[in-house]
């Protein structure tokens, strides 16, 4: 016992002596203590719900089962074959992909063009554009949706007056309704791209750009051959973020097209899943749609990871 105590004291002295000269790196569990809150939260509120989502999608789960009237019965892939056999699902899936792609491309084009513009102007116009963009960014999705509806209202909106469109209804037709939502989505999401890319351009030494300009390169050429390659890591980040956000657009579609448009013509996967689950209590079908979305976004993530690795990014 006594000997043991002495050893402990000696070990303590050694530990104190080394602690004074270098950080106490020896304790293996310290990072795990720092990580514990994050892991508990993510495990309980992200990982477990994902597991449950997959589980529900394999069962028959409607209002009866939720209220406990009947036990949930195992369906296997039954819900998925029902979903994949439904023409509407494929129509919604296609609409989601095309709509998200259009949103991503437009957002990136507008955001990058305005970021370049920001570097060409003096402080005052730059501040004006920056503040306007921050305003659009700060606008909650639901208020943005209602304001854009008012702007394009067939009776009371200013846009139809200015364009001389009379009482043309933007939300009536499938394509014009999607187009209107796209405008709102681009309006509220280009600021993120603009500000991020602008911050990136600012970190490039100006000599590089001056040299290109002195060599007589056009603006487009400077962008394509100098800026874009140097900004690649930033462009990858904003592209991926845009894909994630635009693929999951919910509020704008739900509010602007009244829950998915006339006869569901403007449904996207998210709204479709919501309608299936909460409006018609088909929780298992809604979950199956959720799983499909999850798989698609995971595929995007894998591509992203490969891009990062390809750049030699150290994780």
């Amino acid at each position: 016992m006594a000997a043991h105590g002495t050893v402990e004291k000696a070990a303590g002295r050694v530990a104190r002596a080394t602690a004074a000269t270098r950080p106490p790196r020896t304790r293996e569990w310290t990072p795990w203590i720092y990580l514990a809150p994050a892991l508990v939260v993510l495990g309980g509120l992200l990982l477990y719900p994902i597991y449950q989502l997959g589980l529900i999608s394999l069962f028959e789960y409607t209002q009866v089962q939720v209220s406990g009237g009947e036990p949930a019965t195992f369906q296997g892939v039954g819900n998925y074959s029902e979903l994949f056999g439904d023409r509407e699902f494929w129509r919604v899936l296609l609409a989601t992909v095309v709509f998200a792609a259009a949103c991503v491309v437009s957002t990136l084009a507008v955001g990058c063009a305005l970021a370049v513009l920001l570097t060409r102007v003096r402080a005052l116009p730059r501040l004006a554009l920056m503040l306007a963009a921050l305003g659009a960014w700060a606008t909650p999705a639901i208020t943005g949706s209602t304001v854009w509806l008012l702007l394009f209202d067939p009776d009371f909106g200013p846009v139809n007056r200015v364009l001389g469109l009379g009482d043309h209804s933007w939300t009536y037709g499938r394509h014009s309704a999607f187009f209107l939502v796209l405008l709102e989505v681009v309006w509220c999401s280009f600021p993120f791209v603009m500000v991020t890319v602008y911050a990136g351009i600012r970190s490039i030494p100006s000599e590089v750009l001056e040299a290109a300009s002195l060599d007589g390169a056009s603006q487009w050429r400077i962008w394509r051959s100098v800026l874009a390659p140097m900004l690649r890591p930033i462009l990858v980040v904003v592209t991926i973020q845009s894909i994630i956000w635009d693929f999951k657009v919910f509020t704008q579609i739900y509010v602007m097209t009244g829950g998915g448009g006339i006869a569901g013509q403007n449904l996207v996967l998210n709204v479709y899943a919501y309608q299936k689950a909460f409006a018609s209590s088909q929780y298992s079908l809604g979950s199956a749609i959720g799983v499909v979305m999850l798989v698609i976004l995971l595929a995007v993530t894998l591509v992203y990871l490969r891009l990062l690795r390809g750049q030699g990014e150290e994780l």
Partner: protein
Amino acid sequence: MNSWGFVRRPWRLAAEASALVIAVVVAFPLYWMVLSAFKPAGEIESTEPRPWTLAPTLDSFRRVFGQQEFGRYFLNSLVVACTVVVVSALIAFLAATAVTRFRFRFRTTLLIMFLVAQMVPVEALTIPLFFQMRDFGQLNTLGALILPHIAFSLPFAIWMLRGFVKAVPEALEEAAYLDGASRSRFLWQILFPLVFPGLVATSVFSFISAWNDFLFAKSFIISDTSQSTLPMALLVFYKPEDPDWGGVMAASTVMTVPVLVFFVLVQRRLVSGLGGAVKD
């Protein structure tokens, strides 16, 4: 800062003119929102909308604040958003410190998991979360809105803060220990203030995601409406067939102004924050 003196003068003037025009176009929806909130009812419902008003009135705001429990909804939204911001910032700070300043097994695996977690379509999790919140007895409480949003904002916050923690030189940490600082003292009194700009930038994202939340408020607060948030208050005035535009725009204005103020306050840090996060 880039010096663009070499850009020829007429081009610069054209660029500045277009920047101003674009600024006006981008700001126009917000202008129209505020304008419509102050217009008298008859003027909003005019088929010849004018970009000004000669008779500004507070009627719409009175209707909004006169609505049962509007103040309560506002407070609820604020409580949800602020709790999410503070809690996820603290948890993300600790986690980002762990993955940048320690070498341990599964570190890379964890980082990839945080990255993948960002991609999870949270809307798809509404269904399992609904049952989970029901089982925890959190349905119809603010907890049902706060808890999921903390989880959803964490992965992005950790990923973003990583760059800021990395930027703090290791030598500083060693110097602190030489001066006899404990690990927790270093963490909270040296590292925390240094990465604060990064925390501001990340909190913008978590604030927005919580403040904007519409789906969870709609799905998880079903019977006790006193626990509802601003988007629900706004929908009281928005009936697709016959919207009360004055009320909708006044409620929208009230809902947008706090975020706008927050953005303007953190503007500089946001721009430098994004620059710092992506440079890494």
